[in-house]
């Protein structure tokens, strides 16, 4: 596929006129999607898709076109040359773009990790192990490719095989446990252990449901639950532009009027190599950007466009200015003693469908889902009924934070809208007091 991208790139670069600049972004994936319900296959198939984004720049004007490619060169050649001619004609009609910025230096990179994944074999193993349970979920497995080239000569390539199996086990009362296994190479021992963990939790969730009334509770938020809250924070919270225009839930914190607890340090950390470090306009992203340091707002993610609009220095963030690989530093709560530290309260494994109640003040709402338990004197009592919470981020990460756990979990994004996500999070758990449940 790399050779194909180079062949197309050469074709386009050779067709350029002197004053023109071209930026190309290439995306491809070859994915088997196997959907399960009741421990059988609900839908299964293969998707092959190839895409190229062509950004023509001429006289400080820009116009972009995204094309689906067939990888039949004869067919694609007609499409992309026609598109180049169209862009050339139309770009002149548009006004100059005052926030146009692109990399002119050459920063080449290449990462290829093809470990080979057999989706049929994995599916058989999943069906075998789950045959006596009510399992529902999705296996996404195969190759993901990201490429970049520009007419200055830069070339970047990021290609890897990976799988992501995301599943839930249901008991006869409709209570469920959620689990996930994602990696580049299938390890049956690891999978069997994770699956065994979830079947053991099923026995706890099978206990008598504990009916919770609205009120304030001491809660443990697992890494998955905390990640949902951090996802909401990322709706502009770390964006320089969103803080400027006021759509950031953390705009008061960015202005220095609010803070989190000293133990809270967030960073955008690309060192795990899951997401490529090259930006869609060719810049290379820093490996680590500290966003919130010891509870204080440190730095935003700044795209090149925002840098020009607000006269600041960018840090190679994409235009959407939200993290792709966020990390929250560990705390001091012993991960093996979460229940005793929680003592009496609610153990929240997952939260669901979060949104804002008051964005100005970072107040959010959402619901409990999958594996949420009432805990008394450090012992699981039973699962709780579905409850709605309504709480501010400043309470959760600030004055109501008891502490963060001393072990992080790597969470791979399971999103497959349009394409498989390569975003991830590295998050510990947290214990929070007076967490408000409202309905």
């Amino acid at each position, binding site marked *: 596929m790399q050779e194909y991208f180079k062949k197309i790139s050469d074709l386009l670069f050779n067709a350029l006129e002197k004053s023109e600049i071209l930026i190309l972004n290439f995306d491809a994936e070859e994915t088997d999607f196997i959907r399960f319900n009741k421990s059988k296959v609900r839908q299964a*198939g*293969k998707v092959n898709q190839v895409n190229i984004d062509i950004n023509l720049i001429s006289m400080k004007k820009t116009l972009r*076109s995204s094309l689906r490619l067939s990888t039949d060169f004869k067919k694609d050649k007609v499409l992309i040359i026609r598109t180049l001619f169209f862009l050339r004609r139309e770009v002149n009609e548009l006004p100059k773009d005052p926030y146009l910025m692109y990399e002119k230096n050459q920063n080449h990179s290449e990462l290829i990790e093809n470990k080979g994944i057999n989706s049929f074999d994995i599916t058989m193993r999943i069906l075998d192990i789950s045959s006596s349970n009510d399992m529902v979920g999705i296996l996404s497995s195969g190759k993901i490719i990201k490429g970049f080239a520009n007419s200055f000569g830069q070339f970047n390539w990021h290609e890897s095989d990976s799988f992501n199996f995301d599943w839930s086990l249901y008991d006869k009362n409709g209570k469920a446990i959620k689990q996930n296994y994602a990696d580049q190479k299938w390890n049956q021992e690891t999978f069997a252990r994770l699956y065994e963990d979830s079947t053991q939790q099923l026995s706890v969730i099978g206990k008598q449901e504990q009916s919770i009334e609205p009120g304030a509770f001491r809660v443990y938020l697992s890494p998955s639950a905390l990640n949902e809250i951090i996802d909401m924070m990322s709706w502009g919270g770390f964006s320089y532009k969103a803080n400027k225009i006021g759509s950031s839930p953390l705009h008061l914190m960015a202005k220095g009027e609010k803070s989190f607890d000293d133990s809270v340090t967030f960073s955008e950390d690309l060192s795990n190599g899951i997401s490529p470090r090259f930006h869609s306009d060719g810049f290379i992203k820093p490996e680590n950007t500290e966003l919130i340091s010891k509870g204080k707002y440190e730095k935003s993610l700044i795209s090149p466009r925002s840098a020009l609009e607000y006269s600041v220095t960018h840090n190679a963030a994409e235009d959407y200015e939200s993290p792709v690989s966020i990390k929250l530093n560990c705390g001091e709560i012993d991960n093996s003693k979460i229940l005793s530290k929680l003592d009496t309260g609610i153990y929240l494994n997952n939260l669901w469908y*979060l*949104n804002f109640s008051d964005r100005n003040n970072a107040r959010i*709402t959402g619901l409990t889902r999958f594996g949420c338990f009432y805990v008394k004197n450090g012992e699981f009592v039973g699962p709780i009924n*579905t409850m709605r919470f309504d709480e501010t981020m400043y309470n959760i990460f600030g004055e109501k934070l008891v502490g963060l756990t001393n072990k992080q979990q790597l969470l791979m994004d399971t999103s497959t*809208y349009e394409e498989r996500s390569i975003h991830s999070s590295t998050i510990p758990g947290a214990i929070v007091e007076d967490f408000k449940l409202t309905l």
Partner: protein
Amino acid sequence: MKEDFANIVRPLLPNVDYCSIRFVSRYSNIINATRNVVEPVFISEDEGVMVTVYNDGGCGYGATSNTSKSGIKSAIESAIEWADFTKNRLTYYPKISGIKKQSGSYFTSEDEQWSKISMKDKADYLLEVNKALKSKSSISNWGAGIRYNSIESQFIDTIDSNIRQKLSYILPQMVVSAEYKKEIQTRTYGGHAHARQAGYDFIDTIKMHDRARILAEEAVALSKAENCDDKIIDVVIAPDQMILQIHESIGHPLELDRILGDERNYAGSSFVKPEMFGNYKYGSECLNVTFDPSVTSELASCNFDDDGTQAQREYLIKDGILQRPIGGLFSSQRAEMDHVACSRSCNWNRPPIDRMGNINLEPGQTNFSDMISSIEDGIYLETNNSWSIDDKRNKFQFGCEKGTLIKNGELKSIVKNVNYRGITESFWNNLTTVGDKSTFEILGTSNCGKGEPNQTIFVGHATPTCHFKSIDVFGGV
């Protein structure tokens, strides 16, 4: 769309129990002007095919962006390979005899074609709208945009079906925020609500300039307004909030694949059980909800779904009583229930699943003025800005951009940060009055997410203004 697609593909159809081939070609164009600058214009061209094979107790699909003959052959091989593998391992294998041959077409009517207006004219227009939005010094953010999507499909199968459809829709958007003493309030237009199947003529009809000035004034007023009080109160809900209420607490819980458990790992299931259809009192007697693919210009109007089932209007809820689910042919076979043509896919690279089409709340008899004058103490809610509901679609909380207090039958001052919460099973029984046709609006949302693998699709909702009694309303911090 290739004119000769059917002729090329028919000879490739494999000898299996049943096979369909769905070709999709999509064009998208997004133009935005933000804070008086035209952002990079985005154009997208996409085409591909999905082959679905049912054979001997197994089912599989193959999807590819390679629409050449060799690419389609390869997709057929993938579909057969997965069909072979899943033999006797499927949750459900359909009754193939229930699939009927269909032929026909559907095309959105575009009085003024999108392509006839130059990119420059569209950009200039949006810059003018920007000027109308930035009409006050306290406005901190503003922007306007137009998105155009055109989705052309052709469906053929081994029983000689041949369906061609082309759906085009336009989504205008405006946003304006005002700041007062570090309180930022935002008004929007479009976004979650005002998408229509139409040509560029739709833009002429909605008068974005005029709306822009009103939105700007409202954003400034909201930034200085009082917080909404916490209380149990009567609410009157405008169509641009009603559509989210219908979408989340009627549309999603009635999706049959949720009821059958397919979505339990992601979008969730439903409080609705199969035995409730035909007898369950979903709401008050004035609640009438239809699946209606026939409304001109509504977002999901069409003649066929993506599994080739012919679409027609059906009641989902009649006089408050639950009638039928939103389930396509295959789901309805699984559940042994009636179907609607709702098996839809977002593109060639995702398989069809049960989706809302046009889910409409039918108008009643009361005009807006009479509705307001009947209320002693209440609040009028406009424009959704927050939505959250549990995985069984029962406990919900929604937020609105603007609230207007109603006192002794009259609209009074506006309040900010308006939220309300409730439980679906009781909420619709509090529906007191349904607005007449003068309050009825055809709206739709372009971003309904569901399914594994994930899919975002456009959904139509048409609704009048509605009055509910005794709702739990509250404000911000």
